[in-house]
């Protein structure tokens, strides 16, 4: 198994660190060094089809070229920070925006939009030398409006689109993430994956699986050889009030909480998870994902501590 660290730990939308800081070059220069110093020699990155203006984040091809001079100088900078690889990229499709509002969105529009962005994602992943990409099965169900009434049609079209994407993916593994707020939450994912092209893998996102009410260890056993990558996320959140149905489920209406904890700070049975992955013969990428981290550098070290405590790693 190979371990990477996801730059989704940088919260670019919310307060800490503020947007001005994450726009700056020195912020990213230092972050790469901190990730390397934390013992992670590979990273995962979010993918932005629309680059953020005034930002040094490397999450789009346009930004990479404008700010870093392209993939080669970027790789050189990462190497100097102790990072030898961008292992993967991820993105979540949306409803609305170019595809119209949720109430009038069509299955073709939603899936077509996903595919269009996924093709750009694959092109960027190839340029960076990635081994996997993660595509979320859906955005929050609360944003899907009328599409939820056409769920079967949406899933059939998604499955077909994933096959077409796999034709173009070359050596890049396409993995599907099932967020706890999405249409394939929890164990629902297994039925869908049974119908999907064998080249498509699971992205086992531990916290999402657990919040949706499934046992991550059992989930891994069922996914078995279809696991394409793992997102090492942690959580203490129990969705007793079905916040997964609300808009912006990252911020539950039932009370403020940090849904995603830094790795090792939540209730995920990491020992059990690593044992199950070993049992499944998984030799792909398992990526630490400290989403919503309150202190990025502290989170890097917390994750390293948690991993060090696991003999299997």
């Amino acid at each position, binding site marked *: 198994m190979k371990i990477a660290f996801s730059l989704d730990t940088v919260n670019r939308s*919310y*307060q*800490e660190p*503020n947007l001005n800081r994450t726009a*700056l070059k*020195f912020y990213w220069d230092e972050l790469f060094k901190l990730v390397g110093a934390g013992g992670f020699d590979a990273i995962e990155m979010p993918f932005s089809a629309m680059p953020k203006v005034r930002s*040094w984040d490397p999450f789009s091809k346009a930004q990479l070229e404008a700010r870093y001079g392209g993939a080669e100088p970027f790789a050189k900078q990462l190497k100097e920070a102790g990072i030898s690889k961008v292992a993967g990229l991820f993105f979540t499709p949306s409803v609305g925006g170019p595809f119209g509002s949720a109430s009038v969105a069509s299955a073709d529009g939603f899936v077509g939009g996903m595919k269009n962005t996924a093709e750009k994602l694959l092109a960027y992943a190839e340029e960076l030398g990635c081994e996997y990409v993660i595509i979320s099965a859906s955005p929050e169900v609360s944003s899907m409006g009328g599409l939820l009434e056409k769920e079967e049609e949406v899933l059939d079209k998604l499955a077909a689109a994933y096959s077409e994407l796999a034709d173009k993916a070359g050596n890049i593994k396409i993995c599907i993430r099932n967020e706890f707020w999405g249409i394939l939450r929890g164990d629902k994912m297994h039925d869908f994956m049974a119908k999907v092209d064998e080249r498509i893998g699971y992205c086992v996102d531990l916290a999402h699986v657990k919040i949706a009410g499934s046992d991550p260890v059992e989930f891994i056993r069922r996914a078995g050889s279809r696991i394409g990558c793992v997102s090492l996320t942690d959580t203490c959140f129990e969705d007793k009030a079905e916040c997964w149905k609300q808009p912006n489920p990252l911020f539950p209406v039932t*009370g*403020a909480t*940090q849904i995603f904890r830094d790795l090792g700070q939540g209730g995920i049975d990491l020992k059990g998870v690593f044992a199950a992955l070993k049992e499944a013969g998984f030799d792909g990428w398992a990526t630490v994902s400290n989403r919503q981290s309150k202190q990025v550098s502290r989170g890097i070290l917390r994750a390293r501590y948690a991993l060090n405590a696991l003999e299997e790693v």
Partner: protein
Amino acid sequence: MAEKNIKYSFMNHWKTLPYKEIPNFRDFYYEDKTNYAYYQSWEQILNYTLGCGFEGIEIWPMAAPYIETFGSLKDFKDYVNSKGLGISGSFCGMGPGHIKENIPACVESVKKTVDLVAAVGGRHLNICPGVNYGEGGGPLTEDGIRNTIDCLNEMGRYAEDHGVLMGIHNEFFCIMNKDNHKRIIEATDPKYVHYCLDTAQVSIIGEDLCTFYDDYHDRIVTFHLKDTASPKMPDEVRYAASNPEIQDDGWRWFWEPGLGVLDFPGLFKLMKKHGFKGWATVETDGSPDLLASMAHSSYYIHTVLDKIYR
């Protein structure tokens, strides 16, 4: 105590506040025992704003999606008002209105922000008069200047009709810059187009802050008060092709009032001379600690500036 002439607001650079209130604050804090829990709700930020002695906030259009968590703009306004604060207005960009074909789209876009300001009971719309110089093909041509004037007049007329004062808010890296700044102010219709004096931006462009205010006080209806340690920057910096506002090494153009080199006491003497009445927004963009910036600014206002004019 004599009535105050200046009402201070604080620019809401907190950007995204996911919660309206946090009833479970103590539990939330204990999750990780950091100060993060203190900066996640509108209630907290509004309380800090009032606690630091400000009378209002200025909002960004980008805050609108998060304001929607209140249900409506009116609900947001009512909530802010219930905290004892007002909303002075908002900031926005004009867009590429220096190109004639773009004017209708730019005007339509700004109308939406005018409507937002009116809906939250704001008085001011402070507008950056164009795109960046280096990225937008500066310098402005004669046609570009004419189009900018026409565009601003049309936007300002709509704003005036909706009870909002639209003020040019120039920026040191804007396509409207030192060579045509005053010309455009003078050529716009004073009935519709006012001016928001951003003390740092205008000084970085190369104007003397006090002279500029003295000369244009009759157009200046509000302020963005911020300091700078870098006045009168040369053309090659302001006109850089890459966005000069964001410097690679973290260099800050803007500082809290009193932490730079601008002559705020001199400015306030002139505000007294001209009898300024209205909102002045403290803006601390670039700060790594907005609460400290808010408290520091308040300290400077109350211990230095208030003694000159309040």
